[in-house]
């Protein structure tokens, strides 16, 4: 059974070793793979990038003392890994383009995921709103974690999410189940 995420984070920060890393990996790697997949990376690339991120987490864990800051720190590494990958591969990469990667949204609508209604809604929003909404709903980050990650005050993040919802509510009607 996968260990609860907050508990795994705390145990790893207090005692970064292979055992606690294993628990942390099982708790958060699926989320990271989902982060990359939703942003247009293929399954293999998502797994490679997740592995890269988790290696960085293992090696840099000594710098982090506050478990509350772990997730914003982690997602910064996650985002940077994707940007680095896009820059490293330049024009060769087909799944993600740099501008879209910076905005946290895939340029090509080839992934079957993107046919979801969610993609239509996100496409309606501006880049900064979309990024914040993805962090809130797909990645399930708290307001304060999003604020830390995107470098905005928490109140601004709450406003942006509210305004985005208002904009979407005025334009779309969610399909009933």
């Amino acid at each position, binding site marked *: 059974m*996968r260990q609860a995420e907050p508990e795994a984070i705390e145990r790893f920060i207090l005692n970064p070793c*292979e055992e606690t*890393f*294993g628990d942390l*990996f*099982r708790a958060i*790697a*699926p989320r990271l*793979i*989902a982060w990359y*997949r*939703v942003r247009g990376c293929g399954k293999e690339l998502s*797994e490679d990038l*997740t*592995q890269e991120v*988790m*290696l960085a987490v*293992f*090696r*840099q864990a*000594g*710098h982090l*003392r506050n478990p509350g800051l772990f997730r914003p720190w982690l997602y910064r590494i996650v985002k940077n890994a994707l940007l680095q990958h896009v820059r490293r591969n330049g024009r060769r990469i087909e799944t993600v383009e740099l501008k879209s990667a910076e905005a946290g949204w895939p340029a090509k609508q080839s992934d*079957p*995921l993107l046919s*979801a*209604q*969610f993609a239509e*809604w996100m496409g309606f929003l501006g880049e900064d709103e979309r990024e914040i*909404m993805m962090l809130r*709903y*797909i990645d*399930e980050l708290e307001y304060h974690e999003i604020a830390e990650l995107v470098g905005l005050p928490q109140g601004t993040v*709450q*406003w942006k999410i*509210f*305004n985005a*919802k*208002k904009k*979407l*509510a*005025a334009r*779309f*009607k*969610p*399909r009933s*189940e």
Partner: protein
Amino acid sequence: MQNHITDADWLRFLDAPGDCADTQRVRDHMAGCVSCAKVLESLESMREGLATEAGRIRNVVAISDSEIDALLGRCLAQIEARPHAGWSVGEATLLLRLLIEPICGRGTAGATIGLARRRSLPTTEEDLTSKSWSIFISNLSDAMSSICGAAAGRLVRRAGFSIAVQEG
């Protein structure tokens, strides 16, 4: 004229309906205002829709425990195959000293590093280790901020935390 619910009221009400001091006022208003009741209905419907769709997407990209275990195995193999080649504490401190000397001068750099080191060590320890490195960087950054300004403090913090320090 009817005073409809403002965006600020909506924000407070939707985020924490139980805790909001104005909750009752909002509820009272909605009881008699069809347009605000419709706004609430559409906002809540959108919030539920977003949560449902996001959950569906997460399910589509979910991977099995066995796949995660296989990935973890590969990751651990990489950790063992490529032990981290970091800086020793002494090398890292020297690097930081070289960084701050042009900013505050040689004497001040040495004194500031000495002060930050003393503040970062328990009385039982004499030397910095990789475990006390983070505290040392925070102390050095604070000291540099007070001596040379916030920008110097930030520079030290960024540089210090970018250096991978290991024992030895």
